[in-house]
Structure formats: C-alpha cells, structure tokens
C-alpha cells in the first residue's frame, strides 16, 4: 500500500527526503497523501502550498501543483490561488513557526474569512531548519538554542487560536497515530470552509536532544501515552490536561465559505 502511495503521489526522483532520521514529518506527509487518496481527488486539481522550514519541503516531494513560498506566507499565497480559482483544492502545509509566529496574522485572517483552504500544521515545537530555536509552540520551561535557560513565553494552542479567529473546522492529530491523523486531514479537506489540522510532529534532533526526550521511539511513545481523545478531554479538568495532547476533531461550526460568497457577487453582474 505504501509503495503504491509513493508511486502515485510522490516525485520519486527527488526522494529520499532531507528530514532527519526519526523526524515525524515524513509520516505526516504520507498521511496527507493517504487522505487525498481516500478522497479520490484529481491530482491535477490539487494545489499544495508550503512556507519555509522543515515542513515546507513536503511540497517539493509531492506530485501535485506545488508551491514552496516564503516564510509564514503560505496561507496568503494560497488565498490568492483559492480566491482566483475556487475549483482547485488548496492544501497548505506549514510549520509551527510559519503558522503561529511570522505567519500568525495570515492564519487568523484566513480563519476569519473562512476561505476553503485546508491548513495542516506540522508542529514540532521548535525551529528545526535553523537549528533548534524555540518557537511559539515550545512548551513553557523547555529549552531551545535561543532559550538556553528555559522558555519563558507561553505557548500557543494553534487550533484554539484558529477557532477563536473563525476557523470552522479544527483538529489535532499526531505523527504517532497515522490512522487518526489521516482521517482528520480527510475530514478537513472535505469540510467546506477554513479547516486546520495541527499535527504534533517530533524533532528528535533538536527538540528531543535539547530537552532530553530520548530517542525518536521514546518521543513517539510519549505521544502515544499522552494523547487524550477530544471526547474524553471534555470531562477532564485543565489540571488533568496539563502537558497532554488533546487529539481528534476539536471544533466545527458553520459560516458561508468565502469564494462561494464572492461568486454570488459576481453572479449579480452576469445577468
């Protein structure tokens, strides 16, 4: 199955990928391909947009119309593509820096507009490409090369930020749970409106080593043992959820999708 997926959705000439051994991004990239396969989308009509950083390299490997853009701006490029061509299925892959630091403004506004884009955040809690600086999702007290004495910033909960800004579908998956994550991405693509799936990745090379999280296997095991299904989390206290990963569909709401609304304006003049 996996090799068929590679044949169909990857640019094999450019594999193997550049990610470090144990990195969660490869698994997550496969989940994206699997979700597209499950939905039976036409590859020619799928546009994959990415920003800058480790996550962004996924665009180059995947056999869609792919656009590796500038740091944090992936959603802004994607907004132009979707707005001008609503018939295209636009999927955006971002890192945590992309989505919540340099591109945080683009994230909240894409969510606010409820434009029909599926945003997938490969969140490894660190800036990997530049060598391990803390990011807006690095947990409080954890270390990075620019937080040598421990991070004193509060981390963002990206799906919550997106939900508050107006995203009509938010979810969280993990690199560990490929089956769940694939399903969530699938659901996100199917959803009409802005959807965001944060995917907890792992970075054994920088985050793991800096914070003594052990091997890649240890980090996947941690994800497994600390994932709490969203339905169960509802009945738990904030204290009980401290340091846990709430996974699954987190929120869903209704609001007219942006390009459909704009089409109605255009239609007024086409009579």
């Amino acid at each position: 199955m996996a090799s068929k997926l590679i044949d169909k959705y990857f640019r094999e000439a450019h594999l193997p990928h550049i990610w470090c051994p144990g990195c969660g991004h490869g698994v997550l990239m496969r989940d994206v391909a699997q979700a597209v396969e499950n939905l039976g989308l036409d590859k020619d009509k799928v546009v994959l947009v990415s920003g800058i950083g480790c996550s962004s390299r996924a665009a180059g490997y995947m056999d869609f119309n792919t656009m590796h853009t500038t740091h944090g701006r992936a959603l802004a490029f994607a907004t132009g593509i979707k707005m001008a061509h609503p018939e295209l299925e636009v999927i955006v892959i971002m890192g945590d820096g992309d989505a919540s630091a340099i591109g945080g403004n683009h994230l909240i506004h894409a969510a606010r507009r409820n434009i029909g884009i599926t945003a997938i955040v490969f969140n490894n809690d660190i800036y990997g490409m530049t060598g391990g600086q803390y990011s807006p999702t690095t947990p409080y007290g954890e270390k990075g090369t620019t937080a040598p004495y421990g991070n004193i910033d509060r981390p963002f909960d990206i799906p919550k930020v997106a939900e508050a800004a107006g995203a009509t579908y938010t979810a969280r998956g993990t690199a560990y749970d490929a089956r769940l994550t694939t399903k969530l991405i699938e659901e996100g693509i199917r959803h009409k409106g802005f959807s965001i799936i944060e995917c907890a990745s792992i970075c054994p090379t920088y985050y793991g080593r800096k914070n003594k999280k052990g091997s890649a296997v240890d980090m996947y095991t941690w994800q497994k043992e600390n994932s709490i299904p969203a339905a169960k989390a509802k009945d738990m206290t904030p204290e009980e959820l401290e340091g846990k990963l709430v996974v699954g569909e987190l929120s869903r709401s209704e609001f007219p999708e942006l390009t459909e609304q704009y089409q109605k304006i255009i239609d007024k003049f086409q009579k």
Partner: protein
Amino acid sequence: MKQVKLMQGNEACVEGALYAGCRFYAGYPITPSTEIAEGCAVRMPQVGGRFIQMEDEIASCAAAIGASAAGTKSMTATSGPGFSLKQENLGYACLTEVPFVLVDVQRAGPSTGLPTSPSQGDMMQAKWGTHGDHPIIAIAPSTVEECYKLCVRCFNLSEKYRTPVLFMMDEIVGHLRESVELPEDGELEVIDRAAPADPKNAGPAYACPNGELVPVMAPFGQGQRYNITGLIHTDDGFPTNSNDIADSQVRRLIRKIEENRDDIITYEEKDLEDADTCIVCYGGTARSVYSAVETLRAEGKKVGIFRPITVWPFPEKELEAISGKVKRIVVAEHNDGQILLEVQRVVKDNCKVDFIGKINGTVITPDEIVAKVKEA
C-alpha cells in the same frame, strides 16, 4: 468618435489593468494608492474578476502571485511603507518567474513621511529593494492617459517575460484628474503568457532549451504539476544547492531583461534637435518640466527633454547618445537624487550634469526648473 472620459490617475490604472485582462486584485488600503483598491473592489466582480482586501501588504503581494501561478493576471498596489513590505515576495516572483504587476503610487518618505504628498523616492528601492541580484522592469507614467495605457504595457511585459513589473506612479499622477481617450477593444495589444500546448505531457516547467530566456509553463491546475520554489531550483522546479545552477539561473533572469532592452525600453524625446540643454525627468515631474521648457523656449533657450518611460532597465544607450550632443543635462526628480546617480553613471564626462530635486512634499514648479536651467 472615441470616448473621452475624465478620470483620476488611480482610476485609469484600474481600467488599464482590466483592459489588459487583469482579473485578480489583492491589496491593503494606503494613501495615495487607495483609489486603486477601491476601484478594483467595484470593478472586478463586474467583469468576472475577483478582489480581496488582505490583512497586510505582504499578504496582498503573496495573494497576487498565488492567483497568477494559477493563471489569472493579477495586480496589487501600494504606496510608501507598503512598498517596503512588498519587497519580500517581489523577490519571490522574480526568482519563481510568476508574472504580476505591482503598482507603487509614490509618496514622500522615509517611513510614514508625508502620506498625501508627492515623491519619487522609491526609484532605487524599485531596482534594489528586494534582496539578491535580480532584474526588474519599472515604468513611470506622466499623464492620466499613460496611467491607463502603460498599465496595459506593464501586464504585457510581465506576461511576455514572466517577471514582476513595477508601475511606478506618484501622487502627482495618481490623484490627478484628466481626460483619457479610452482605447477600443483590440486597439491596444494585449499579451498573454505562453503556455505549452499539452500541459499534461509538457517537459520540465523551468526548462529553457535552445538558449531561450523565458520558460514556458502551464498555470496550476492544467496537469503539468510542477513545483514552484523561492530556492534556486532545477528545471523541474526542485530545490538545489548547485552553484552552477545558481549561476546560470540568476544570469538567465538578468539576461532575459538585459537582452530584450530594446523591446522593453520606451522613452520620450522632446525639443532635442537643436538643444544644448536636456532635462531628464520621468513620471509626474515631467509635467513641471513641460511647462518650464515651454517658457524657456519662448525666451529662445535651446532646451529639450529626455523622459524615460521605462525607468528600469534604464535607457542608457539613448541617454549616452544625447549626452554626446548637449552641453548640459539637468536631472529633475522628486527625491534627493536617485535617477541622478544613473544619469551620472551613463553620462560620465560627456557633458555637465546638474540636479534639481525636492524632498519636502511639495511639487517642483516650472519656475524653479526655469531658474535652475538659467543658472550658469
């Protein structure tokens, strides 16, 4: 009889864009370019196009490039601080060879400066504002009619050479209302980017076989399925660290503009036949110069005008020829001497070069130019 319409420069820019086939606009309000966004908000849906007000200037530029990658001619417009913010993605479009038009209605700076006052202080930023070595095309209109017709040309050059084109307007022409003789359908040439006949079986998107300088690729969604990246890339658009490719790629980008200078460059020469003094000016400044030259000619002074319409690439050959014939060149521009540097570089010791500029937010008057020319 042709339709003549009273239009503001910014409005004419919008109508020119629509004439050229622009069907996507992304922008952020900023004086003195806001009327372009407002005009596009009204006009785009009327012609089946789309308008979006983005969260900032960076996003506007990105959205315009995204729309163009999917095949829709697109534009964004800005002024002053917004032009600085556009620079990041302007460079992206240079390297990725995605056509689009970026309008800068220049205002007095630096920083927030004088938002409603005219300036031409972004001319060097137009050339060098985005990092790295790259070519750029920049065009400056002097009349409202040029805001219309040259905007069409901006799109044509952008499509033909797959490069961003900067439309360097200024507050003088942007806010001016004049009559425009509206071109009829088919009257002005409209160029669309070349595309492969069979996208599904097309070769690598960025390949330039046989010494060609502009790649031919299909827009997203038509089956070619290539990668676009702001990293140095191979012919199929995949990132590479190859120094050889970096060299040949950036050199090709430069050559595609340099080797087509004669196609890209346009300029106006006025009263130069017998002139001993030539005033070099562009954009809104030309309006002051026209009046000044009229006065000077009436007094028997042999003064002419050289007006680059294409400012980048700079019309070096043409100016060099003039500098061999006149005794003196006076550069007039609304900044502290930006294109002056270019003129000095080209003219060398061929003739004397003087300068009149203004950075206080007021317009250089014809009288001030007359006085400058009369200075020995």
